[in-house]
């Protein structure tokens, strides 16, 4: 039996994504961040931790693209190396948050009623713990590190993801097409992976991209307070924290890490929105003619 090729089909999600300027901006900044992080492993213009008091506060020049800071480090090199920390924190937190979120959401929506209620209370209790408190507890036990930031942001955001997507999973798992799936002979696992989770995915995508953005900001704050990356590790948050006391004298030096953080955070958010819009067929991807 021969099957003919469809003539009219909905435009693919990748093509739809490419036509959304905001999403493309998010993709470009994210790719740029990854490239910077990879590049910094093999090359930075100067040693990012090398201090040289004689060459402090150089303005931007061909030698020092973004100038030097209060102890003579090349700011461009520091930012390049710091992108590694940013990327690790963003991706790591999102992964932890995804696992924590899916587990909480699934346990809180698909189990027996008494268990669901326990999970709901547990989520409410955990939400009351600020990220900072979790980070402080972890840091006091393990010492300040990137891992502390990842776990603290991952857990606290994961609980949030769980809280937001729990009713969503519950709603979808009770919808008629899930019942229809069971009536067609689908087992619980297939039903979850084919019907329930894909319909909740847009919520997860947006939440997790937001988590990546929040993680970048949290790294800034936690490093500032000394719970984040150790002093020897260059990070955007640390640079910003160190330079902000000179904002009155050398304002430009603070602009660079600030700009890097802002663009990255914005990029993650737009990437998430763009992906959601492009992958949901209900949002009306236009139809195209293919031969």
């Amino acid at each position, binding site marked *: 039996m021969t099957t003919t090729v469809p003539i009219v*089909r*909905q435009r693919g999600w990748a093509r739809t994504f490419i036509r959304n300027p905001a999403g493309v901006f998010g993709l470009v900044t994210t790719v740029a961040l990854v490239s910077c992080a990879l590049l910094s492993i093999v090359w930075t213009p100067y040693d990012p931790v090398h201090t040289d008091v004689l060459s402090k506060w150089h303005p931007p020049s061909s030698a020092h693209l973004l100038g030097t800071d209060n102890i003579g480090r090349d700011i461009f090199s520091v930012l390049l190396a710091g992108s590694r920390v940013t990327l690790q924190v963003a991706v790591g937190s999102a992964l932890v948050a995804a696992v924590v979120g899916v587990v909480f959401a699934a346990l809180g929506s698909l189990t027996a009623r008494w268990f669901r209620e326990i999970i709901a209370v547990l989520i409410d209790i955990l939400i009351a713990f600020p990220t900072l408190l979790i980070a402080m507890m972890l840091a006091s036990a393990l010492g300040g590190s990137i891992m502390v930031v990842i776990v603290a942001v991952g857990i606290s955001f994961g609980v949030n993801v769980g809280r937001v997507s729990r009713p969503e999973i519950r709603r979808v798992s009770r919808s008629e097409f899930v*019942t229809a799936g*069971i009536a*067609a002979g689908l087992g619980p696992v297939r039903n979850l992976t084919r019907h329930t989770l894909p319909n909740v995915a847009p919520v997860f995508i947006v939440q997790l991209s937001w988590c990546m953005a929040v993680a970048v900001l949290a790294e800034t704050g936690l490093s500032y307070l000394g719970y984040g990356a150790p002093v020897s590790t260059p990070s955007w948050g640390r640079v910003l924290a160190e330079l902000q006391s000179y904002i009155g004298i050398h304002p430009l030096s603070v602009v660079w890490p600030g700009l890097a953080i802002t663009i990255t955070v914005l990029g993650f958010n737009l990437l998430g929105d763009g992906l959601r819009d492009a992958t949901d*067929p209900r949002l009306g991807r236009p139809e195209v003619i293919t031969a």
Partner: protein
Amino acid sequence: MTLRARDLTVNIGGRTVVDAVSFDVADGDRLGIIGESGSGKSMTALAMLGLLPDGATATGSIRLDDREILGLPDRELARLRGSRIGMVFQEPRTSLNPIRTIGRQIMEPVRIHQRLGRAECRSRALELAKLVALNDPETLLSRYPHQLSGGQRQRVGIAIALAAEPQLLIADEPTTALDVTIQAEILELFDRLVDALGTSLIFITHDLAVLQSIVARALVLERGQVAESGSVEDLLRAPASPIARRIVDAARATSWQKPEAP
């Protein structure tokens, strides 16, 4: 295939919604179940597939070819669902997954129950789409539910229910959500398919006209109990129970009367 329900009773939170209902469906047989909303029609259908909502319990007996299927563990039931008993739902707008293509959804029961390869599944899906008389089936298979009309969606629902070649089809008010003109087409499709495939049919409806056009034998349910059962012809001509009389009278009152010539 024979299905034999005896004293089927469904309780939800202390309330009896189906009360000692018994019926038989033989090979190639058609049975109608009619009643007002809340009479226990849908619960009877759901009980047969073990799809009752949380907190509902079913007692009594449902035998499929001398095998008790009431109270079977979920794993065992999953093997029956779709492959022995197929189900068509009332609302085709919500019974299809909005983010999967029609083709994938029709292929699903084939994949699960018949373990065919990808290409075979696809050609089977195409076959099924043609069987339920979908226009332009090749294109439709790559579409999403929101791009289809209500009637097309219900045809897809029927294709899914028949995909794994069940011997019994349960249709729970499959035409209620459709326009009257589309209703007639879907009923005609049921009639044709059930005959051609030799499938048994349990057809649930609240509409006497629909019932009359598709089955010859029916149960009348009221508050979970069988008020009357027998041929539809008898039911129409001489309804014995008060509820049957009410349903027949209501149908007469609302049906269009040809004006007398002056």
